[in-house]
């Protein structure tokens, strides 16, 4: 599965808007994740996960920054996220199923912030993009 030219264009243009609120979006996606799928909290025993916590805001910003890196290198996401990929494989070991859950929450968050832009085509483009990012982050597990 790869992104078509049209899909890349959608992602790049939407990222322009998203990046102005990237941190908030990353944070909200995590809040949604922990609220809807409490089992995901298992990876953050060391965090204060209450909404509005500094930990959540910092981590949300990190997630958003990584996605920004992937967007900037949309033709070589594997290269851009190589270190993160290793971290997930050897240190974090987040079960792959959770990437789908976070991706879902990111889509919901982006949709709620940019409803006019989040057409069916945009939804597909973002879902494919996040799938590719998830694949890259889990490809070194075994």
């Amino acid at each position, binding site marked *: *599965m790869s992104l078509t030219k049209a899909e890349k264009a959608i992602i790049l243009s939407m990222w322009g808007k998203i990046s102005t609120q990237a941190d908030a979006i990353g944070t909200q996606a995590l809040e949604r994740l922990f609220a809807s799928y409490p089992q995901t909290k298992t990876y953050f025993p060391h965090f204060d996960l209450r909404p509005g916590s500094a930990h959540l805001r910092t981590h949300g910003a990190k997630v958003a920054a990584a996605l920004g890196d992937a967007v900037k290198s949309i033709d070589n996401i594997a290269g851009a996220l190589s270190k993160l990929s290793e971290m997930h494989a050897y240190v974090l070991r987040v079960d792959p199923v959770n990437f789908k859950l976070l991706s879902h929450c990111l889509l919901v968050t982006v949709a709620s912030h940019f409803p006019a832009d989040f057409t069916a085509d945009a939804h*597909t483009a973002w879902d*494919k993009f996040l799938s590719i990012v998830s694949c890259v982050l*889990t*490809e070194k*597990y*075994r």
Partner: protein
Amino acid sequence: MVLSAADKSNVKACWGKIGSHAGEYGAEALERTFCSFPTTKTYFPHFDLSHGSAQVKAHGQKVADALTQAVAHMDDLPTAMSALSDLHAYKLRVDPVNFKFLSHCLLVTLACHHPAEFTPAVHASLDKFFSAVSTVLTSKYR
């Protein structure tokens, strides 16, 4: 996820041992799939799915033959399975989740018939191989 040299050699060795039983195991894996995961029957409304059905036997042979091809071309699965990939994308449209069910049942079938060969390492290699095949067969869906 990349198949290591050890993975490829495990898969080739195991598949070699199976030899002419491949069709029989393919049919058994299908039967197990329909039994344990009845939703999968939805893709075969035109089949007799009862135990010993000739249609399931024939289809098991098809599945086995495709896998035998895949084993022979592990270095370039996308090319070797391109036609089957098109078939699944444009015609069959089997929901990707079902590939995991069939892969699981294939592994169980192999474990039952070749317990000595089915060491943890061989199990892991086969699971990676079936994952890789499943990825190729669903790669053109969107």
